[in-house]
């Protein structure tokens, strides 16, 4: 069953178009992450789903029902905010049951729900405390608890972990994942953190400038980015985009990096083109992730190349090396156990089974 469906949704603030014809749907029980840089419209989209923001154009369906005119409280949703947004004057218990009280739920039912949820989230000992007496992680837990007691059809999370410190963030991330595994409720989760998106989402929608760039599983987003924006946004360091040209022969297609001669070509005959090549679309980017540049041959199809090392960034479990490839910077990621000297030539292998090729004009995958 489709839990949430967005159709041709557009929204402007004044003259700025924040969302441009957004379309997607999400199956019940899935975990959708809206990922994108700040200002890409992801939070606005979430607010529209919640009913906190008006729609300019398009439709939002929750359980196949057009909720355009439905009040936030009646949409069967619950939302968790970045700043937690706990009511400062109320204690934890009052915070959690406020919604139920507004909905005129019976006292017994409220007590029952409160007990269940506070047990589940281990906040039963905090019930009489004010939000100001809680730590960041506890506040976040209470905020999630406030959402849980409503037993919503869809959970909306608006950057819920951004205010936590690094260690707590990883912990809470796992808890949210566990929560979803247990409850199987549909989730829409907004973040600008790619690790959060990758680890939590069953689906990811990458947004930029109010447009969904790619809506896919985490695996496909990582391995088969739709365009250079997605390729660049995901991964750390991001994908190398080597500028160059495609040359077609009778039974072979090869890539020649810019600033080199014909002899330096990489044969990509095994590449799985999503679109047939047009005659004049041979200006391309050759995309390869830093971890797909190996220091020893792994596959037969690996392409061997000699590169000069320019820079070595040691970061503990691995090292990131900057190479000079035909006067273009190419980054490689290697285990820190490999000894690499700066300023020397090094034999490397491009894993051609993992590459992506993008049209330079449209920036789309070909």
């Amino acid at each position, binding site marked *: 069953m489709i839990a949430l469906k967005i159709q041709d949704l557009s929204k402007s603030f004044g003259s700025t178009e924040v969302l441009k014809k957004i379309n997607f749907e999400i199956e019940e029980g899935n975990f959708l992450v809206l990922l994108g840089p700040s200002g890409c419209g992801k939070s606005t989209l979430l*607010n529209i789903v*919640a009913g*906190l923001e008006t729609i300019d154009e398009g439709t939002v369906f929750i359980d196949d029902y057009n909720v355009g005119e439905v009040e*936030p*409280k009646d949409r069967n*949703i*619950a*939302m968790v*905010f*970045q*700043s*937690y*947004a*706990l*009511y*400062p*004057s*109320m204690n934890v218990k009052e915070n959690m049951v*406020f*919604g139920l009280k*507004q*909905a005129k739920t019976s006292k017994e039912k409220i007590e029952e729900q409160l007990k269940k949820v506070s047990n589940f989230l281990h906040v039963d000992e905090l019930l009489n405390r*004010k*939000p*100001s007496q809680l730590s960041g992680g506890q*506040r976040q837990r209470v905020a999630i608890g*406030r959402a849980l007691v409503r037993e919503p059809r869809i959970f909306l999370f*608006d950057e819920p972990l951004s205010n936590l410190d690094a260690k707590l963030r990883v912990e809470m991330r796992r808890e949210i994942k566990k929560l979803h595994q247990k409850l199987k409720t549909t989730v829409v989760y907004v973040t600008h953190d790619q690790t959060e998106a990758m680890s939590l989402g069953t689906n990811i929608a990458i947004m930029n400038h109010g447009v969904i760039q790619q809506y896919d599983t985490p695996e496909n987003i990582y391995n088969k980015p739709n365009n250079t924006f997605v390729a660049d946004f995901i991964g750390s360091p991001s994908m190398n985009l080597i500028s160059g040209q495609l040359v077609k022969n009778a039974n072979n297609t090869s890539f020649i990096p810019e600033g080199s001669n014909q002899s330096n070509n990489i044969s990509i005959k095994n590449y799985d083109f999503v679109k047939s090549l047009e005659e004049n679309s041979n200006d391309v980017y050759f995309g390869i992730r830093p971890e797909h540049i190996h220091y020893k041959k792994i596959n037969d199809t690996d392409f061997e190349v000699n590169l000069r090392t320019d820079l070595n960034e040691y970061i503990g479990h691995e090292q990131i090396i900057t190479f000079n490839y035909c006067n273009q910077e190419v980054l490689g990621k290697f285990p820190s156990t490999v000894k690499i000297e700066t300023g020397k030539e090094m034999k490397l292998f491009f894993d051609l089974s993992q590459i992506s090729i993008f049209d330079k004009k449209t920036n789309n995958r070909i």
Partner: protein
Amino acid sequence: MSANITSASYKQLEERSKIKNLLLRWFLYFVLILFASYFIFPLYVMVVTSFKTMEEIRQGTLLTWPSQLNFESWAVAWGGRGYGAGDTFLRPYFWNSIKMVVPAVIFSTFIGAMTGYVLTKWRFKGDRWVFLFLLFGCFIPYQAILLPMARTLGELGISNSILGLVVVHSVYGIPFTTLFFRNYFVSIPNELIKAARIDGAGFFKIFFKILIPISYPIITVTVIWQFTQIWNDFLFGATFSFGKSAPIQVALNNMVLSSTSVKEYNVDMASAIIAGVPTLIVYVLAGKYFIRGLTSGAVKG
């Protein structure tokens, strides 16, 4: 040069800066005490004069302590001498002022809170203009609106009444109270309102249940500000009321300026203190919160 400083010269420098700091400190205290006396001096004169008899005052010893505490002038200032015509005393006007201040403070604070709430949390098209025009109200000199206001009060049939003064002060308090509340509410995260809306709270519920309980600092500031303004106002009181419905400041003026016989300085001083005491009490009771409210910013949590 600096490399050649020996431990002996360090010692010398240390001594020198110690003396310098000490001298500066003494100078600082001297200046502070000077300023403090400058401010406390008139109050001192008022208080001692109010307890003196006229005999003592005529001797011209302004600064001396009264020979004995003489409460008579206070009694006269508050309750009069007990004879008929021409006896002005403060008691009825004091209550006039209370009857004017309390409702005017409550109305203007409440309306300001509401307006500030709408201007920050229920934004609408043109809200900036509304706020801008409201701000104009802070800058308009009161003299400029005396005539139109007199006319308005006349039309409403509430000129020369306490109700009329309540209306005038409420209306002219709104720009300030709105400014206070708007600036306070702006610092409260909008997510709080969103969360409450999803929880099913409406316009008034959010205001009374979520915002008001965390607004005590700014409510205190507003109440003190409004109380002081309205209590101390002379212009509106003198213009829109006379005779029995005048507030205390007007009565004080009448008392002090219109006496035809000998000036009774002790009674004048006692009256002036009585007229000023309520604001002092408000400051003493709520002053702590006043500072806290002025400096408090975002509400955490």
